[in-house]
């Protein structure tokens, strides 16, 4: 040993350093600066993830209030609570907010918070990019909502079909705000997708080979790849739209060689995978919650992973089933019928595996499990009505009717929001250190489940008896009155369910029962650290020996005694990189410090995007502050890192 290796200068994780000392040093290295500055410059994936959760949930509530407004308008025939102009803005904002500002960001939020914990690393890959993505997302969301409040809200549907959304039929700036909001949220989503892919590929704890990756992480990984391949389509199409509107290009002008259906192809090439981008992470919630409460490992791990791949792959081959009514050749349409129905096979396999896990388990019906059971009941119904929609003749009748509205709410609320609420109850203790009330949770589930079915089941029938979507009013005497009233009543109950949840969170944040590290006795790594986790996630990087590391510990080791590796620096932010397939330790890389530059860059991007709504030159002059921001971001800090401490 050299002279300098007394404990004072050992700056590595290892047996030589006591636990308390290790934690203290890690806390110092990974700390976020205090105060407002720290709040603006943090790159901690847990803080950013929490912000994403809170922001996305806020948008969920806002969009839900819009839905209530619509249900009030449609409670009876020929009501005049809302003008058609206002109604059109409201249903557009509802769909846009739910899809772009709630569903996808919420799923990303859970990925940002949980994936690094579940794979056993100290931070997400590219944490500054992560902070940047949040600011960009926030700016896009605020921009859209301020526009809406100022009566510049988009009014052409979340799908913005041209030519209605084009320059001739949508004067003013309403649609431009929509198109730029898409750009904002897609930039954010693409950034997060890259972070998740790299985190999962390179930062898994030693021993977490491909066959030990938690199913939630698999779900997020497949989702991230879908984002990478799907989101560019909507960025290309929304850019074309805004160029048609602002600088006179002719992509969608049939008189000059453009075509309105080009928009639909591009939009649905994104729009259909989008459904799976929302659904696959939710299957990850289910696959996390079920084993914990059934008290047995998930049945059919391999089948579930393959089902994720199959869904992700098939998801790109179905977009034309949104266009069956456009007069495309029927033979081609039949191919898309087959592909759309084929996706029932992986979905069916997933459902079977989940029910089988429950069947062979010893279930404990806590609130998360209630929501998972609600998910199966509701989502399967939505999946089956999806099979009806895949059929060309049936689709020709129910397309663009309330049947479709019912279908996709069963699929999206059933398939994503039910698991999401389960996930809130499941991980809330990890996020906050406190439990949500189980008693209120049961009420929350009951109101939500009953309200949901009451609100949306009647819509199936409404669609079949002729009620089209996106109407601000309907005539009396066609036979739609009672069912609409019923749906409105259901919507109110549903809203009460959400309010119950908000109340539960509000109360539990202060008065909830203290959770401890692993209140549910779960098996994955996020439960192997304190609740909430420290800034550096784990005192030592654990070694993984099974799919549920906390359940399959080597003989003789108690739950907290995971085998760990030493040798990482504790005086600086350092990550362990492992190999892609086997997760063998390979490299120690530094992780960036907090920085204000991601926020400044996001502000520059915001100025550029919003400016470009009003003049194309904003792209040119807006690039200058953006370049400054990016250079500041990537410029290495000085002085360079302190030299490596040496230990024999």
């Amino acid at each position: 040993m050299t002279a300098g290796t007394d404990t004072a200068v050992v700056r590595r994780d290892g047996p030589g350093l006591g636990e308390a000392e290790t934690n203290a040093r890690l806390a110092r290295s990974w700390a976020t600066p205090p105060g407002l500055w720290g709040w603006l410059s943090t790159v901690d994936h847990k803080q950013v993830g929490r912000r994403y959760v809170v922001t996305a949930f806020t948008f969920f509530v806002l969009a839900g209030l819009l839905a209530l407004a619509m249900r009030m308008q449609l409670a009876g025939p020929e009501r005049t609570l809302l003008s058609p102009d206002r109604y059109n803005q409201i249903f557009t904002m509802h769909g846009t907010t739910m899809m772009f500002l709630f569903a996808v960001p919420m799923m990303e939020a859970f990925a940002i918070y949980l994936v690094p914990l579940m794979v056993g690393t100290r931070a997400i890959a590219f944490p500054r990019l992560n902070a940047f993505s949040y600011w960009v997302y926030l700016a896009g969301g605020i921009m859209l909502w301020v526009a809406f409040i100022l009566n510049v809200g988009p009014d052409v549907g979340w799908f913005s079909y041209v030519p209605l959304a084009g320059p001739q039929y949508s004067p003013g700036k309403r649609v431009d705000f929509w198109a730029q909001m898409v750009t904002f949220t897609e930039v954010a989503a693409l950034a997060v997708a890259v972070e998740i892919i790299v985190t999962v590929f390179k930062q898994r704890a030693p021993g977490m080979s491909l066959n030990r990756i938690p199913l939630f992480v698999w779900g997020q990984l497949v989702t991230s790849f879908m984002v990478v391949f799907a989101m560019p389509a909507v960025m290309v199409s929304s850019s074309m739209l805004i160029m048609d509107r602002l600088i006179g290009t002719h992509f969608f002008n049939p008189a000059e060689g453009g075509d309105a259906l080009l928009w639909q192809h591009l939009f649905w090439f994104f729009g259909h995978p989008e459904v799976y981008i929302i659904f696959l992470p939710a299957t990850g919630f289910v696959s996390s919650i079920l084993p914990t409460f059934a008290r047995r490992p998930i049945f059919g791990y391999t089948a579930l992973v393959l089902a994720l791949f199959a869904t992700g792959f098939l998801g790109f081959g179905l977009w034309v089933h949104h266009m069956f009514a456009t007069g495309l050749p029927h033979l081609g349409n039949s191919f898309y019928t087959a592909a759309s129905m084929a996706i029932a096979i992986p979905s069916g396999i997933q459902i079977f595996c989940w029910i089988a896990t429950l069947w062979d388990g010893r279930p404990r019906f806590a609130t998360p499990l209630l929501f998972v059971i609600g998910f199966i009941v509701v989502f399967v119904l939505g999946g089956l009505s999806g099979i009806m929609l895949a059929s060309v003749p049936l689709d020709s009748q129910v397309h663009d009717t309330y049947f479709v509205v019912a279908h996709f709410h069963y699929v999206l609320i059933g398939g994503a929001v039910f698991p999401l609420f389960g996930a809130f109850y499941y991980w809330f203790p990890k996020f906050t250190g406190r439990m949500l009330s189980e008693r209120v949770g049961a009420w929350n589930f009951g109101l939500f489940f009953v309200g949901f079915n009451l609100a949306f089941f009647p819509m199936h029938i409404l669609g079949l008896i002729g009620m089209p979507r996106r109407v601000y009013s309907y005539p009396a005497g066609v036979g739609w009155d009672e069912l609409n009233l019923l749906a409105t009543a259901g919507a109110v109950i549903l809203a009460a369910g959400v309010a119950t949840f908000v109340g539960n969170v509000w109360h539990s944040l202060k008065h909830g029962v203290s959770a401890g590290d692993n209140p549910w006795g779960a098996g994955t790594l996020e439960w192997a650290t304190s609740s909430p986790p420290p800034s550096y996630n784990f005192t030592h990087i654990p070694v993984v020996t099974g799919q549920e590391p906390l359940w399959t510990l080597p003989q003789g080791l108690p739950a907290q005694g995971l085998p760990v590796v030493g040798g990482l620096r504790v005086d600086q932010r350092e990550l362990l990189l492992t190999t892609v397939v086997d997760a063998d330790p390979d490299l120690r890389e530094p992780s960036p410090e907090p920085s204000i530059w991601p926020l400044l860059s996001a502000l520059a991007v915001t100025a550029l995007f919003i400016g470009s709504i009003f003049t194309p030159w904003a792209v040119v002059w807006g690039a200058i502050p953006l370049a400054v921001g990016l250079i500041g971001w990537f410029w290495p800090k000085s002085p360079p890192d302190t030299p490596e401490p040496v230990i024999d």
Partner: protein
Amino acid sequence: MSSPCRSAVSLAALAVLTVAACDREEREPRGAPVGDSGPAAITQGTLYAGQPSPPGPSHREYEGNAYHISQGKQLYVWFNCGTCHANGGGDIGPPLMDDQWIYGGTLENIHATILQGRPNGMPSFRGKIPEQQVWEIAAYVRSLSGQTPKAASPGRSDSLNAKPDEQRMPREEPKGSSPGGPNLEGRQ
């Protein structure tokens, strides 16, 4: 998290940016109420032709409103204004996208011209085109020479590309308002 504080700040900033939007984006299908003084003041006759009238209350309501200008563009096509004025470049009738205005280039002037008709071929549309639509057409005609705010002017149409869209038109300051009055003969 002090998210309320943050939201408030961002909200205020954006509100300042887009505060002008409210009027521009309003879609009032009944038309903005224009005081009687508007058209009456101009219908004094061609004596005042060329004199820019003081901007009335209608200015902002129609000229600054994307929906009304766009409606005006549609009516311009529907009512066959292009038969004489082409796409604004002029044919039998005078061009509408330059800086020359025989009978004045303000919104009120154009409104009066449409209602009253003018010698040498411009018919009177009084009683044929409802008041509100006349204002809309007048506002659109102003946009042809870039007189309306760019953010409210129409983009390209879904039709053959005959000329750059109105929102990219260079602004032509009306010139036909010199004290000497318009040169009516010059047009004949």
